[in-house]
């Protein structure tokens, strides 16, 4: 999935609430969306402004078949992937 489709899907998930946060036993304080420091609307607006050059992809370290999308925009880093039916946020921080 390229950036255009990933962007549409993640923004849709933020809008309709079909997202979750990846956890590893604890609440990652670097995920500012999970801890409520930023709202889904804030992240959606940030991603809406993101361009292809702000986007990169890598494999998930635990499940290499999952593509992790990284958007670096305006000093923010947002890392997410898709495991249907949800969008999963790994981190969202400055």
């Amino acid at each position: 999935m390229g950036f255009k489709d990933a962007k549409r899907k993640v923004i849709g998930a933020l809008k309709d609430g079909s997202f979750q946060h990846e956890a590893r036993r604890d609440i990652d304080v670097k995920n500012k969306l999970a801890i409520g420091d930023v709202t889904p609307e804030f992240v959606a607006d940030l991603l809406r402004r993101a361009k292809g050059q702000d986007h990169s992809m890598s494999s998930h370290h635990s499940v290499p078949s999952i593509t992790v999308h990284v958007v670096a925009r305006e000093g923010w880093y947002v890392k997410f992937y898709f495991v249907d039916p949800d969008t999963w946020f790994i981190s969202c921080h400055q």
Partner: protein
Amino acid sequence: MKLHYPGEKGRAVCENDGLSSITFAYRDVPFSDGSGVVKQILVGVCDVCKEVVSIPPQSTPAIKAVREKAVVSIEASLPAVYFDTLDLACYRIDPETTVDFRKRLLLYYIHRTAGDKRAARKIARLREKADARFSAAERLGSKKRLSFKVSYNVSRSIDDLVETTKLSKTDLFKSLVRQIDKDIVEPDTPTNLTELRTLAAVANC
């Protein structure tokens, strides 16, 4: 919005077991930086290793509430002249304020500066400029301990300001007090006095 229920099944990535089936359940979950624990929030638990692997958005308000309540101690040792300046500013804002208003006035300036990069740069430059009155008083006077408790979020704003301004925490407080001196103590008519009097009125409730 999607509401999850305890006992509901799903799937998620578990760092131990890869893509696994999960069951939603209420658990006590700590913060990764050790700043506290959020009691009994709904999370996704890996069916294999029983570790917490997912957090749905409905648990975020409870996480945010605990995060905001976490208390952090702020300590700094400042020359007495900075306390005198702070107290005089408080007195000018409202002669009825108590010593507790020192903290609120500093927090007002921290909040104002943390959200404004230009203001933060101004605070950083203030420390670079020597002020004859403060320098002389620093040499002559004794030191006092500034000590108060703030929420985790405010503590993080202070840490962010320390990073932005490249000042030590002590120098940051010194610069903030010098800004307070410039804004409130020095001028014949302080510009933000009305706003600060409202803050004092609310703080004294």
